[in-house]
């Protein structure tokens, strides 16, 4: 009996020695700044030294790239996962730990797919603070989003800045209708999710042109108490527009603290016209043309309640009943011809069919 116990203990000691050896190996392989985290055991936010972290990543990348020029700089925003939600909408999970730590629903990032690409704002579709990732959902509309879409898992986005803009104010809401249209659902989803987490009753109304374009259905189901799926042609869910579904819910006696509408400008405009009739506060998320996104260029200005506001710092969320939608729609078409042209050029370049 005693010998048996003695052998058991010896085995365990041997196993522990093996574990210790493994830990030491991991420690030796790790970077300098990772070692600091390992040693101090402190919280990430207290000890992270970006400069050092970036430099370690850079050095590792230089080793990994093995003389492949340009690779060594691609150390920041690696695409961890990429998938297509429908033929023109893609989803990417991007490694950006500092942004992931701070991101809130309603905020956005600006990316440049490659050096010399355009700066394009995209609302954050999801974030994972633990994994240090940001999820973006994009519709392929022009050269910039095409370039983004040409990047694959493991590759890096050249620039990725955020979190920009002010977060949606969701605290204290008890019952909310979240209205999403098309790719706008990608922005509506994190809002619905956060509201659900905060314990609010969420009614989600999502609209798409047809069945093939439907995205995030399961995700919405998981975070809403009621989901109305609408398609323009009736090929999925109910046939009709989101405003019809919203009006029906209101007429059924649902009293909403707030309606949050995110989608094409024309959809948001009609949702606001409807809710104004019923006097329900409505928040919309504006997505105007933008360059720097930090309050410098003034390109993203819009008129809200007769005042000039800047979507990048004052928004992107605004009181829908005060937004001048017609003006915003006009301004959004400023570069339509250029975009069209650039998209065709990019399609030729990539030998793809213009969609």
């Amino acid at each position: 009996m005693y010998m048996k116990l003695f052998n058991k203990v010896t085995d365990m000691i041997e196993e522990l020695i093996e574990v210790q050896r493994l830990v030491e190996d991991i420690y030796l392989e790790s970077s300098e700044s990772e070692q600091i985290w390992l040693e101090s055991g402190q919280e990430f936010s207290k000890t992270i030294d970006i400069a050092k972290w970036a430099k370690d990543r850079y050095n590792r990348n230089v080793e990994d790239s093995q003389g492949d020029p340009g690779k060594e700089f691609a150390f920041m925003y690696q695409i961890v996962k990429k998938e297509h939600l429908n033929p023109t909408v893609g989803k990417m999970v991007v490694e950006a730990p500092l942004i992931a730590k701070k991101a809130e629903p309603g905020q956005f990032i600006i990316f440049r797919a490659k050096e010399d690409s355009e700066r394009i704002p995209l609302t954050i579709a999801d974030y994972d603070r633990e994994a240090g990732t940001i999820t973006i959902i994009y519709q392929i509309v022009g050269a910039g989003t095409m370039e983004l879409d040409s990047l694959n898992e493991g590759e890096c986005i050249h620039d990725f800045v955020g979190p920009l803009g002010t977060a949606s104010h969701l605290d204290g809401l008890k019952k909310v209708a979240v209205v999403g249209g098309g790719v706008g659902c990608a922005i509506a989803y994190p809002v619905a999710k956060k509201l659900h987490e905060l314990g609010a009753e969420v009614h989600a109304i999502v609209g798409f042109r047809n069945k093939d374009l439907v995205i995030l259905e399961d995700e919405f189901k998981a975070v809403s108490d009621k989901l109305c799926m609408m398609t323009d042609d009736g090929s999925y869910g109910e046939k009709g527009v989101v405003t019809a579904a919203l009006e029906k819910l209101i007429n059924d006696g649902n009293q909403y603290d707030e309606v949050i509408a995110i989608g094409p400008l024309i959809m948001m405009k009609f949702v606001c016209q409807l809710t104004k009739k019923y006097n329900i506060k409505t928040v919309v998320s504006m997505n105007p043309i933008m360059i720097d996104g930090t309050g410098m260029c003034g390109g993203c200005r819009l008129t809200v309640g007769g005042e000039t506001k800047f979507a990048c710092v004052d928004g992107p969320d605004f009181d829908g009943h005060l937004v001048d939608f017609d003006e915003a729609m006009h301004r959004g078409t400023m570069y339509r011809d250029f975009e069209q042209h650039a998209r065709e050029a990019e399609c030729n370049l990539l030998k793809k069919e213009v969609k």
Partner: protein
Amino acid sequence: MAFQRNMDLKKCPMPSQDPNVRNHNFDEVALGYTYDMAVSEARRCLNCKNKPCVSACPVAIDIPAFIERVTNEDMEGAFEIISRSSSLPAVCGRVCPQENQCEGKCVRGIKGEPVGIGRLERFVADWHREHSKEAPKMPVQNGHKVAIIGAGPSGLTAAGDLAKMGYKVTVFEALHLAGGVLVYGIPEFRLPKAIVQQEIDNLKAIGVDIETNMVIGKILTIDELFEMGYEAIFVGSGAGLPRFMGIPGESLKGVYSANEYLTRINLMKAYRPDSHTPIKHSKNVAVVGGGNVAMDAARCAKRMGAENVYIVYRRGMEELPARKEEVEHAMEEGIIFKTLTNPVEVLGDADGMVRGMKCVEMELGEPDASGRRRPIVKEGSEFELECDTMIMSIGTSPNPLIRSTTPGLDANKHGCIITEEETGLTSRKGVYAGGDAVTGAATVILAIGAGKQAAKAIDEYIKSK
């Protein structure tokens, strides 16, 4: 005296591209003095005792001393003297408003033209860049960390000075490229971006880390930077949101802020045919405002192919706040000055595009608080100016991101961060600020001066801790 003093009443003229060639390209306008021109111009300096030029320089460069080195053809020595006071001489030689500073006080200017101090500064800096083989030396580290917010002129200056003192400096820049207004604002033809890049590379060589795509106030706050071990922070976040006039029609398509127009062209390279960032190619462009930014925007518009470019300014030619040289260059390039004119409405067509603007003529009345004569509307003077693009260049208000996310950081009613004049210290311990974030839109050299002062104050603060 070892040399013959040059008593020519006029400055040695600056070789520059022909106006009708350069207004179609983005290459640098002024080509710079040759070696002989620089030596000859330097010999115009009287090396006078009371040196009024030095007192008129925001960073007090020992001007007669560096010019004397040039006369002795000791260019490296001249550079050494300038770089004691200014961290970005190649930039300042090109963009400083010398006529209101050093050259404005030059004794030679009393009778004839002042010494071309700016041109000489530029020559010395360029000569050093082209001839110096010496790699910048890595300073001995003192183990203290300082964070700089914004990689514009004030931030880069503070970073350079602190790094030379041995501090570990990290510069956080919101855009994807360091340089601030030097890269997004001032156009290539006035300040080649390769020069800015060289200055930034020099900073990196002495150990300054530049982290782009970092919007402080959003991704990290000032307080988090302190938690990360930075002992002092310099805020040089620059000018922010553009101002508009608040007249009808400013949201029409074709109305740009100068910031947007210049950022598209300079930072995003929209002037190149292969750029992915669009810009409107217009026929008639009206730029509202009379400062350097307005001149830059107007001259860019001309280079983008516009037939008629107007500067619309509510005061007279005398009152234009832009550098004299920029106004002269703009006129040479065919920019039309509509002074004593003020827009009252932007007119649009059925598609919501700008088609013109309604203006009134102005006349000058009594001087106002700023000492400039107040413009008054002339009765019944309304007229329409045809244009398809309008660029608003009437100033900016400081960027709100830092002050709105930093508790205890005081700002005035315009949103400018309040600082102690001598040190740049803000209402928060260990937080310093300078440049446009403090002054509102001003000049590169004032920002450099503020960066230098703050670097000195930060050094004293950390040493006294």
